[in-house]
């Protein structure tokens, strides 16, 4: 539930209307200007139809310097951001050789494995020397090394499923698996705020897609009942298969999925469940095993569990875990397994070492410390932000916290002001999120120390006052207590 002040909603619509009107004006004059000038592409079809690139040209390019900032070091708690400048009002950006050391609040570095780690990095370098950076082959040809088989066993063990299969790219895992699991005549019911990879995979599968309201099990039940009663479109025959796709932690909202209720509903109506744990694997749960452990759901009830290694494990790639028959079938038929190059061996070694650290198999308790640290950091940061009066989304224990901005002009203002004060944050604007609900998304890591977080809070509070995003009333007395705490430390 997002609570918007009414006046802010009105001003946001008005701002977007103004931006849109200006964009149309400029396009109109650009068309006249171009018609006047001859061009040598007579007879060719235009590359972009209609107004397909309108948003990019007229809205995104104006604030382009807030997105896609190049970095010059590993995405640890502090990293180097390359400075850029523009001579033509942000249409093109030129890199300089200056770098500024900023505090990283944007990388998905939940457990701190993004930078050099004392256990993982020596082993990764050893495997790089032994196996070379790429297998140069698909899994079925010559690309399955001992590392890949060991990784699949360890992942299946970690997630508590009978077996698993890994792929070289997380996005491609979703986009290539869904067409294999379901086809025409099947039904996919997906949450309305699912990630683009799931949407693309579902569209590519050819099945009918229905959407249920974000994280609302009652609406899911309503949609399921309606669809099962109606059957396939036009012929009204029963559906061949029904898959319900949900995510563990939603990356734009930071909220946990209501998994127990959804699993209960799916069991009642005999639909399969596909859980995408991209952001929750390794980051939540007592031993880092994801939302199933956190919410107490038996993993045997979830039919297909998917996840990625980019967030908590500091590597690349994705996995699917399920029953032995399912994984065997995927090995015969999934194009990402048959034709795509297999995962890079050092990356696979990084994941194996990271899993060992998380489970404590390296002989130290660093894994448990990291998990406790990220939980503490997230809860501390979120409660402090809420006390200052920001509108922060997300549940407790979730390391993702979006701060709502709403107005389009506040997006570049917040981003640039924070960068000046050496805090790097990530902005999320339309169309990645709904038009009205622009936000900045903060990702907390286990490698953030308490002092760094307190300093970042001060910066964000100052910038928040300047930009005007403290939509809720702050709690003044506790602010004084925080200042006392900082003085005592």
């Amino acid at each position, binding site marked *: *539930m*997002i*609570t*918007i*002040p*009414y*006046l802010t*909603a*009105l001003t946001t*619509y*008005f701002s977007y*209307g103004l931006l849109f009107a200006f964009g149309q004006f400029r396009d109109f004059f650009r068309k006249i200007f171009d018609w006047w000038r001859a061009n040598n592409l007579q007879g060719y079809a235009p590359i*972009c*139809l*209609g*107004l*397909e*690139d*309108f*948003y*990019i040209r007229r809205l995104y390019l104006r604030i382009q310097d807030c997105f896609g900032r190049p970095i010059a070091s590993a995405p640890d708690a502090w990293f180097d951001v390359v400075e850029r400048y523009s001579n033509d009002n942000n249409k093109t950006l030129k890199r300089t050789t200056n770098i500024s050391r900023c505090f990283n609040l944007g990388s998905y570095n939940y457990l701190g494995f993004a930078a050099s780690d004392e256990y993982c990095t020596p082993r990764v370098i050893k495997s790089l020397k032994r196996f070379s950076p790429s297998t140069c082959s698909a899994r079925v040809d010559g690309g399955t090394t001992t590392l890949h088989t060991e990784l699949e066993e360890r992942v299946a063990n970690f997630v508590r499923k009978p077996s698993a299969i890994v792929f070289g790219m997380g996005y491609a895992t979703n986009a290539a698996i869904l067409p294999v699991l379901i086809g025409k005549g099947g039904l996919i019911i997906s949450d*309305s*705020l699912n990630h*683009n990879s799931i*949407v693309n995979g579902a*569209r590519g599968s050819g099945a009918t897609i229905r*959407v*249920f*309201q*974000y994280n609302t099990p009652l*609406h899911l039940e309503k949609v399921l009942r309606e669809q099962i009663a109606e059957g396939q479109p036009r012929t009204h025959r029963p559906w061949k298969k029904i898959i319900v796709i949900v995510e563990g932690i939603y990356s734009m909202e930071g909220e946990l999925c209501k998994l127990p209720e959804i699993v209960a509903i799916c069991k009642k109506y005999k639909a399969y469940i596909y859980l995408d744990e991209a952001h929750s694997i390794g980051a939540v749960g007592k031993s880092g095993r994801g939302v199933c452990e956190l919410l107490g759901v038996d993993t045997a009830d979830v039919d297909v569990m998917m996840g990625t290694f980019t967030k908590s494990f500091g590597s690349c790639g994705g996995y699917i875990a399920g029953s032995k028959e399912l994984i065997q079938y995927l090995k015969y038929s999934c194009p990402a397994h048959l034709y795509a190059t297999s995962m890079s061996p050092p990356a696979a070694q990084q994941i194996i070492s990271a899993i060992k650290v998380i489970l404590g198999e390296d002989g130290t308790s660093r894994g448990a410390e990291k998990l406790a640290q990220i939980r503490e950091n997230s809860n501390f940061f979120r409660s402090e932000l809420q006390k200052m009066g920001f509108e922060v989304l997300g549940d407790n224990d979730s390391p993702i916290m979006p701060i709502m901005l709403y107005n389009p002009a506040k997006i570049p203002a917040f981003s640039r002001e924070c960068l000046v004060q050496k805090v790097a944050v990530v902005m999320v604007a*339309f*169309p990645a999120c*709904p*038009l*009205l*609900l622009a936000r900045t998304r903060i990702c907390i890591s286990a490698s953030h120390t308490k002092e760094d977080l307190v300093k970042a809070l001060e910066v964000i509070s100052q910038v928040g006052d300047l930009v005007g995003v403290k939509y809720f009333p702050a709690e003044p007395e506790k602010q004084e207590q925080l200042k006392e705490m900082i003085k005592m430390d």
Partner: protein
Amino acid sequence: MYVRAVPPTDLNRNTEWFTYPGVWTTYILIVFFSWLVVLSVFNCSPGMAWTIVHLSHFLVTYHCFHWKKGTPFADDQGIYNRLTWWEQIDNGKQLTRNRKFLTVVPVVLYLIASHTTDYQHPMLFFNTVAVFVLVVAKFPHMHKVRLFGINADL
């Protein structure tokens, strides 16, 4: 002072913003303020100002709702490329609350414009043509209909 925004189930980011609270008020406020601006810039009678507002409203909404097709971004891979904004709204369902509101607004503007100009002749003709075109374009039977091939696809 605060309103709750429930994320709708519309996957089309181009039209989903219309289901959030505050849109109708913003629309009405923009029309009203443009009337004030026209009055102060052109120094004409209030009736003439309403006629100008009504006709420019006709041009702007016809262009945006019924002429331009597709979406302003390329993320949806062009599945809405043949549909105008009016046909995309509410996923193609007809006679929803939003559609009814958008059909009533030009009619109300027409009534105000004709009343304040005392139904005099040249303005009345243009106002009537404008409202006729707009309301007919919004009929449920006109969903995906292209008369005489106007605005049909390439």
